[in-house]
């Protein structure tokens, strides 16, 4: 039988802990769960293939947030992330990460993943952030996925590749019971009963449309279509601060990082068309992105990453990382453009919008044990709400989730669920395959994401949002009534576009709810241009209640690490002032 041909099938399996998503957080969560109880069954479900899936498919060029003794303390890091997030942070989870991450660095090192060390054998940590020193380069970061995969095989984790999870199952009393998934090459359904479920499904990176017009030329791995956000939403879990969009400074058209985190410590910097610096610090924050955006619009753009003033040996060293690790086609792209870093600067632009706590703070709400608001359901990595947690946060919080989820599984039996849910989901999933005539998923997706760009991209204008939501509702109707999928691969895309549509609706709803401006460009509302600490110094939680999208405020937990009044606005001072 040919691949992609649709097969009618449904099977059911069960396990103690189900981890969904085999990118960064997922493998670590699965590993830690299994090591905690080697007799238990741990299943790692992946839409692509664990060997090469997720944001670090080809590796990673550095740790952006390593708290290494001698360079930084957990208190300093917690303070920096709190300030970078305009104070809207539950510090307990950030502080716990900061305390645990060095242990994870050493564990990764023991897996064979190497980090830059100086001549004394100490980690060579670099300064990129506004205040502290947390960036640790990984010159052979191309080995990350292979090293993780070896660990998974050694621990005998059950890996199921090419299964896309579509909905979570819950018991009548609201506890997690498992998940429903579909094979991306045959369209057969697989129901997985589980005592605990960990969502590690990455960012919602296919939300906005890249300016190149190429739908898969996104900043995030284009497989990260926000399925985890949509699944958590439909399961009734709370999602935090979704209005705090992810928007990043990237190589124009290529749409990948340039990358200032790699090149900055060697002396590279972001400059305008006059060759002048205009931002104090290259660390990605909403405040920094606002200055970047303003510069592009000011007539002083384009904006560039400048390396040409550096020594040729230094440039060669930077190239050897940029063109080998994380996004290795960067070299091919620059070569095609005739750009040599020795003589020409790298033209930069800003990315499409997305949700991602890895870089901003928009994620499924979790506490410091990676627990969501649904009992037995966990989340970690880019899709969980611990802010700015990057790759090391995915590993560290994935580890926390794996251990806590196994403890949950050890003290709970399988929850009962209504078998009727499976029939309903099967009908929903396969609906596009049952139609003879209609609109293919790529057109539904293009239109949805084009509307996201036209109406939801900051600056956020209330009237534009209202119009955008009307247009999106029309496309949703087409999606639900008329979309067709002629083979299993098209069905995969058809399911992904439903996640994208859900994320677009959540982005709009969350943005209209917060009636102030905060986090620089991430939530810049022209109708409410000021930060309003009196009414909006709080998280927002979005969730589905009785079938309806709702938002509410949630107080910021008391700080573990106090922030002095004169420190609170340090990230607001990003623009370089004219010297006296």
């Amino acid at each position: 039988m040919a691949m992609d041909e649709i097969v009618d099938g449904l099977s059911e399996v069960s396990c103690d802990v189900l981890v969904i998503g085999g990118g960064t957080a997922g493998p670590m969560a699965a590993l830690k769960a299994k090591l905690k109880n080697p007799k238990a069954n741990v299943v790692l479900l992946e839409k692509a293939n664990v060997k090469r899936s997720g944001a670090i498919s080809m590796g990673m060029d550095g740790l952006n947030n390593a708290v290494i003794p001698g360079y930084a303390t957990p208190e300093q890091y917690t303070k920096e992330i709190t300030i970078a997030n305009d104070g809207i942070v539950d510090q307990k989870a950030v502080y716990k990460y900061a305390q645990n991450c060095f242990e994870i660095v050493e564990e990764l090192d023991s897996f064979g993943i190497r980090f830059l060390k100086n001549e004394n054998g100490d980690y060579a940590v670099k300064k990129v952030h506004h205040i502290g020193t947390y960036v640790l380069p990984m010159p052979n970061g191309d080995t990350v996925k292979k090293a993780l995969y070896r660990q998974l095989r050694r621990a005998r984790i059950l890996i199921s590749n090419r299964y896309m999870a579509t909905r979570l199952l819950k018991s009548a009393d609201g506890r997690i019971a498992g998940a429903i998934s579909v094979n991306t090459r045959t369209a057969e359904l697989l129901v997985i009963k589980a005592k605990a479920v960990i969502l590690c499904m990455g960012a919602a990176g296919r939300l906005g449309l890249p300016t190149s017009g190429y739908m898969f030329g996104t900043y995030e791995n284009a497989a990260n279509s926000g399925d985890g956000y949509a699944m958590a939403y439909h399961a009734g879990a709370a999602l935090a601060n979704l209005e705090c969009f992810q928007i990043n400074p990237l190589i124009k058209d290529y749409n990948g990082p340039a990358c200032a985190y790699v090149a900055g410590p060697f002396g590279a910097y972001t400059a305008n068309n006059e060759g002048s610096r205009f931002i104090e610090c290259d660390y990605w924050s909403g405040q920094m992105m606002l200055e970047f955006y303003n510069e592009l619009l000011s007539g002083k753009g384009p904006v560039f990453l400048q390396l040409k003033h550096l020594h040729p040996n230094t440039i060669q060293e930077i190239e050897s990382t940029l063109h080998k690790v994380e996004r290795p086609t960067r070299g091919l792209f620059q070569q095609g453009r005739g750009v040599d870093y020795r003589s020409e600067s790298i033209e930069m632009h800003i990315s499409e919008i997305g949700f991602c706590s890895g870089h901003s703070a928009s994620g499924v709400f979790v506490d410091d044990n990676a627990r969501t608001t649904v009992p037995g359901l966990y989340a970690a990595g880019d899709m969980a709400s611990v802010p700015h947690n990057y790759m090391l946060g995915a590993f560290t919080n994935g580890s926390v989730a794996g251990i806590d989820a196994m403890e949950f599984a050890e003290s709970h039996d399988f929850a009962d669920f209504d078998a009727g849910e499976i029939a309903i989901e099967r009908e929903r999933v396969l609906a596009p395959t049952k139609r003879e005539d209609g609109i293919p998923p790529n057109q539904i997706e293009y239109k949805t994401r084009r509307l996201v760009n036209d109406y939801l991209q900051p600056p956020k204008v209330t009237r534009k949002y209202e119009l955008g939501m009307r247009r999106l509702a029309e496309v949703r109707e087409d999606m639900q009534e008329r979309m067709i999928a002629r083979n299993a691969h098209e069905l995969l895309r058809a399911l992904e576009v439903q996640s994208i549509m859900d994320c677009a609706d959540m982005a709009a709803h969350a943005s209209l709810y917060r009636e102030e401006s905060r986090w620089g460009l991430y939530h810049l509302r022209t109708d409410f241009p000021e930060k309003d600490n009196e009414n909006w110094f709080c998280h927002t939680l979005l969730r589905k209640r009785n079938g309806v999208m709702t938002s509410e405020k949630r107080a910021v937990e008391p700080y573990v690490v106090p922030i002095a009044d004169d420190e609170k606005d340090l990230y607001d001072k990003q623009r370089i002032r004219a010297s006296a």
Partner: protein
Amino acid sequence: MPLATYQTSVPVVVDETKCIADKGCTVCVDVCPLDVLRISDMRGKAYMAYDECWYCMPCEADCPTGAVTVNIPYLLR
């Protein structure tokens, strides 16, 4: 509504003289995060069946015979 075929020039190119898919190799198809590569029934060689590429490179890096080349998609080249 009838559907038309939309022509695109695809970024992933396979050198059929080097590709050993006809010997049972499926490495590039296995590792692609977007699942866009297939083995041709007619030719027994790998090819890009869907123009949905993140130009990330596992297919090229993991190919045992060096048959796969990832180019930058034309729209962003």
